[in-house]
């Protein structure tokens, strides 16, 4: 199963090293393949450098895509996690 959802990046510093590394760790707890799509680029969400290479800043919208047996749970939890992270920044 493949599911995806758009997320707007709302924090001032964008998707930078600290939130990216926490997000990547969270991704690692799911069985699904998770990718982040931004513009024409799509990267493996298990790589911090991959995520950083997207250059996502405040006001940009990304798509989180999960593919695998736990895709739905993974997507829901990862989107919530990102929102919580951004609220903390």
């Amino acid at each position, binding site marked *: 199963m493949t599911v995806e959802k758009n997320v707007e990046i709302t924090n*001032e510093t964008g998707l*930078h090293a*600290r939130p990216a590394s926490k997000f990547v760790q969270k991704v690692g707890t799911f069985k699904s393949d998770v990718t982040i799509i931004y513009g024409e680029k799509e990267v493996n969400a298990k790589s911090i450098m991959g995520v950083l290479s997207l250059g996502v800043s*405040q006001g940009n919208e990304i798509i989180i895509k999960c593919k695998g047996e736990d895709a739905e749970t993974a997507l829901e939890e990862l989107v919530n996690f990102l929102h919580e992270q951004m609220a903390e920044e």
Partner: protein
Amino acid sequence: MILDLLQKKNIAVNVEAADWKEVVAETGKLLLEAGQIEKRYIEAMKQSIIDNGPYVVIGKGIALLHARPEDGVKENCLSLITLAEPVEFGNKNNDPVKIAFAFGTVDNEKHVKTISELSVVLMEESAVDNIAEMGSAGEILSYIEDILAQQ
């Protein structure tokens, strides 16, 4: 964009460092000597690792050291050291660190683009090992230039 920031004066090769704190000190020193940060920025970079853990080791063998703009950054800046001997940061996936960057930013928007460009370079096949083995700043800069030219 990283080539605007990363100049020869910001690069040191084969640096001796006994532990991660010395890696931070040596990488930060290049920015301090160039007049780009205040001394307290180096302490802030160390404190960030103590507070948040070794997340700064963003890929195999690479540390990307930084603190916040208000911790004493005078202008956007980036430095790089390659280590004579690899150093453990306590990051089980990506240790030991062979090369370390320190950056300071006064501008969040630009910083995201700089880090993006730097990540693209470091994701190149064997880039970290290649940079770690280079003997001079000039060699490293032309290597980075070549990778960016291919993008």
